[in-house]
C-alpha cells in the first residue's frame, strides 16, 4: 500500500462522518505524508497502521468530543487507553474523576487487529457507526398543540359524555342502594310478619286446629321468604356493592390514564 491508496481507503472509511470532519482529517494525513517526505512514506505507513485503525481513531475522537460536549459542567470520567502492540507496548490511560464515564480504547495488534470501544455514562455503548444523535422523546410540540385544539373543539361532546357517564354511575349506585334498602326492609317486614302470623296460627290451633295450622304454615312460609330476602341483602352488601365500587374505580382509572396520556 502506498500513500495514495492509504488516503483513498481512509476517505472511503470516513464516509459516514460529517464532510467538514472528513476533509479536515484527510488534509491532516495528506500533510503528514508530504511533510514526512517520500523517503519516509513506508515508515509512516507502517507506523500509522491500517487505514481502518486510523479511521477508528478519528471517529473515536469525534465521539469523545461529542461526549465531552454532552457532559459539559457535569462530572465526567475520561479513560483513555491505547496500546500499540509489537515489541514494546505503551499504554496510556487517565482518569479524571467523576461519574459519567467515557472510555475509548484502541488496541493495535501486530497484524492489524483493531478493537475499539466507547461507553457513555456506563449505560449505552455507542460505536462510531451510529453516532449518538439526540432524539427528541415523546410527542412533538405541534402534535400537542393539535391535541389541545382538538380537545377545545370537542369539549361540548367530552363534557356531555362525562356528564352521561357520571349520571350512569350515580344511577347504578342509586339502584344498588335502593335494592339493598328494599330487600333489607322487605326482609325485616316479612320476618316480623312471619313471626307474628306463626304465633297467631299457633294460638289459633287451640280454637280451630285446621285454620290454625294453615295460618301457622303461612306464617312459616312468610318467615322463609324473609330469610330469602335476608340472604339477598347479605349478597348485595357482601358481593355486589364491592364489585360495583371496583367497577367504578376501574372506569375512573381508565379516564384518568387517558387524561395523563394527553
Amino acid at each position: 500500500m502506498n500513500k495514495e491508496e492509504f488516503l483513498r481507503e481512509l476517505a472511503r472509511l470516513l464516509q459516514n462522518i460529517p464532510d467538514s470532519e472528513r476533509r479536515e482529517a484527510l488534509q491532516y494525513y495528506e500533510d503528514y505524508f508530504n511533510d514526512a517526505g517520500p523517503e519516509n512514506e513506508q515508515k509512516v505507513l507502517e507506523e500509522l497502521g491500517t487505514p481502518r485503525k486510523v479511521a477508528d481513531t478519528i471517529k473515536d475522537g469525534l465521539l469523545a468530543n461529542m461526549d465531552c460536549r454532552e457532559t459539559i459542567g457535569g462530572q465526567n470520567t475520561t479513560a483513555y487507553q491505547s496500546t500499540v502492540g509489537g515489541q514494546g507496548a505503551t499504554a496510556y490511560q487517565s482518569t479524571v474523576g467523576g461519574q459519567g464515564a467515557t472510555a475509548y480504547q484502541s488496541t493495535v495488534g501486530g497484524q492489524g487487529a483493531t478493537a475499539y470501544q466507547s461507553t457513555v455514562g456506563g449505560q449505552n455503548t455507542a460505536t462510531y457507526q451510529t453516532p449518538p444523535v439526540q432524539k427528541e422523546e415523546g410527542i412533538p410540540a405541534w402534535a400537542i398543540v393539535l391535541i389541545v385544539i382538538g380537545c377545545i373543539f370537542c369539549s361540548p361532546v367530552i363534557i356531555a359524555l362525562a356528564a352521561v357517564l357520571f349520571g350512569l354511575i350515580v344511577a347504578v349506585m342509586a339502584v344498588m342502594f335502593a335494592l339493598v334498602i328494599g330487600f333489607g326492609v322487605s326482609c325485616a317486614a316479612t320476618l316480623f310478619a312471619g313471626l307474628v302470623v306463626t304465633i297467631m296460627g299457633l294460638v289459633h290451633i287451640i280454637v280451630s286446629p285446621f285454620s290454625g295450622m294453615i295460618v301457622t304454615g303461612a306464617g312459616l312460609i312468610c318467615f322463609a321468604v324473609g330469610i330469602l330476602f335476608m340472604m339477598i341483602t347479605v349478597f348485595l352488601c357482601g358481593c355486589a356493592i364491592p364489585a360495583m365500587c371496583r367497577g367504578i374505580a376501574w372506569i375512573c382509572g381508565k379516564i384518568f390514564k387517558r387524561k395523563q396520556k394527553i
Partner: protein
Amino acid sequence: MVFNTGAALLDAIVLAVVSKEPEGTYGYKITQDVRQVIDLSESTLYPVLRRLQKDECMVVYDREYAGRNRRYYRITEKGMAQLTMYINEWRQYSGKISWILEGRSQG
C-alpha cells in the same frame, strides 16, 4: 515508560509544543516533537489536535509551503490560559509525587 500519559497531560504537552512556535506549527512536526518526550502512536495526535481546535485552544490556518498548502496550528489566548493552568497543576502534582517518591520537597 511505565507511567501512563493521560488525556490531560497529552493536551498539556501538545499545547506546550505548539506554543513554542509563535507562527504556528504543523502536524508532522508536532508529532515528532511530542514523540521526543513520550511514546505515541502517530495516529493518536490528530484527534487531540482536532479537540483542542474545537475547544478554541488552537486555530488552524493554511500557508503555502513547497507548492502546496500546509495546515498550521497556532495557540490562542484561551490555549495559553489553559497551558498556564496545566503548568501550575503539573508543578503541584509533580512536586507532590517527587516529595513522596524521593523525600524531597520542591518549590
